[in-house]
């Protein structure tokens, strides 16, 4: 068992790291210094808490420790003197104001928006969010994204440098910029989640943690921006997908499709949380792509048996999603839902129309969906061809094995 102090520091790290770094960045304007001081504060906590006990407000303790460390470091360097005066000025004003004032945006929110600024490359945004906000080490991030540690360190350094040199502001964008900036933040969190979620058992386990990190960050975002329905929609979507994680792979690490999943393995608590969150946010009447996707996930997650799934409702939701964010993949999903709700012939007509356009050439799920519909129509030979085509295009072993099983089951 982990001793209580280590456990407390561990928990504080998960809960407070982002806040400590975010506050230090605001005070010093120096991202590297902020990270270094946060690290030192946690090291100090491990020593001090063992002796004096865990403080009542670990976050405040850590922020103060990191701030003292920053003042120390700045005092030591000549160029730090001017910076120090600035920092001291800010601190006096904040101390006088008494800290946690309502209406003052949380520093983590500034950090999220700065890390996810669209002037940074998407991969840099993702890496920076994990490093500064979630506190993952460069090594962990490099492993999660299958790149070398040095390459990842360089990517992070370059991103921080651009923030400084290009003048990317450290702030929550003003209201008129939010509609274009919030989607960039949500996209980063969703990408993080999917990186973790689609990882299979054979892949590095670190990737599974990415899904948890994404959910944790989305929770922070929802708490900080309670009036943004799409933020809540994204969190609901993640929860509803994540709830099924235990049933997605069998013992051999093979993919188990939705209809074959052991529904008893689904996390009922997480599903209930996701559905409640979604219901609350849909009531605002400002639907967006994440809310609609969450609504689709909820249709699946709340069906006690596969045959209870409300496919007609899912088809309607995909049509709605298609209007919000037109994409051939969404169309394919709609075709599958129509095939389930109104029979395989209706679904196949849509899939074939999509195939004609060539928009999904090379995407294995198109022939896979076609194969399924052809099988249900009794057109076995054509179904077999389509399964083979899909297997030839599939990217992972688990998917290829699944398609081979379906092909074999045709007899």
């Amino acid at each position, binding site marked *: 068992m982990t001793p209580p102090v280590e456990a407390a520091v561990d928990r504080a790290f998960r809960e407070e790291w982002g806040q400590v770094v975010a506050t230090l960045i605001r005070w010093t304007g120096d991202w590297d210094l902020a990270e270094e001081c946060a690290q030192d504060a946690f090291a100090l906590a491990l020593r001090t808490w063992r002796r004096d006990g865990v403080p009542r407000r670990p976050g405040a303790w850590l922020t103060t420790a990191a701030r003292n460390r920053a003042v120390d470091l700045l005092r030591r360097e000549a160029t730090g003197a001017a910076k120090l005066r600035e920092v001291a000025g800010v601190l006096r004003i904040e101390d006088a104001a008494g800290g946690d004032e309502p209406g003052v945006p949380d520093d983590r929110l500034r950090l999220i928006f700065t890390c996810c*600024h669209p*002037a940074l490359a998407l991969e840099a945004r993702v890496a920076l969010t994990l490093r500064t906000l979630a506190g993952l080490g460069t090594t962990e991030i490099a492993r999660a994204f299958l790149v070398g540690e040095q390459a990842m360190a360089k990517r992070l350094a370059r991103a921080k440098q651009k923030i400084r*040199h*290009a*003048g*990317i*502001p450290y702030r929550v*964008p003003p209201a008129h*910029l939010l509609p274009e900036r919030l989607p960039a933040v949500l996209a980063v969190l969703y990408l993080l989640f999917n990186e973790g979620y689609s990882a299979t058992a054979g892949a590095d386990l670190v990737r599974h943690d990415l899904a948890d990190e994404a959910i944790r960050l989305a929770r922070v975002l929802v708490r900080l921006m309670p009036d943004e329905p799409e933020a809540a929609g994204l969190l609901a979507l993640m929860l509803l997908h994540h709830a099924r994680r235990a049933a997605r792979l069998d013992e051999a690490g093979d993919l188990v499709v939705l209809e074959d999943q052991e529904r008893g393995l689904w996390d009922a608590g997480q599903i209930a949380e996701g559905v409640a969150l979604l219901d609350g946010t849909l009531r605002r009447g400002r639907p967006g792509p994440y809310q609609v996707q969450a609504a689709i996930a909820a249709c699946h997650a709340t069906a006690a048996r596969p045959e209870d799934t409300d496919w007609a409702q899912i088809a309607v939701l995909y049509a709605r999603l298609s209007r919000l964010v037109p994409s051939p993949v969404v169309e394919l999903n709609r075709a599958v839902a129509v095939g389930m709700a109104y029979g395989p012939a209706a679904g196949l007509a849509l899939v074939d129309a999509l195939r004609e356009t060539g928009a999904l050439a090379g995407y294995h799920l198109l022939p896979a969906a076609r194969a399924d519909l052809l099988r249900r129509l009794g057109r076995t030979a054509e179904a077999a061809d389509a399964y083979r085509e899909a297997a030839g295009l599939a990217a992972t072993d688990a998917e290829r094995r699944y398609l081979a099983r379906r092909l074999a089951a045709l007899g």
Partner: protein
Amino acid sequence: MKYVLLICGDESAAEHADEGCGGWSEKMAERGVLRGGAGLRPPSDATTLRVREGEVLLSDGPFAESKEQLGGFCLIECADLDEAIEIAAAHPAAAYGTIEIRPLIDL
């Protein structure tokens, strides 16, 4: 922060060369963020120079043979990148060409 807006476009952008900036310059000058700038004659009027071992080498045309060519530039001074983005987005050339926002080296 000071930024240069490098206004680029392909050949079709040349059609817009004489259009001016549709009031953009006046508006930005009034706002106090415009520090200078100009439109450029087309690349066909360019001369490229190098000095190698004391010798001046000249060639006709632009340095880089690329589709996108520099058509003009503006020097602006504003609070941060977000404001620079907003200023650049208001420039009429953004609607047909591309604008590269480059921070100046801080001396």
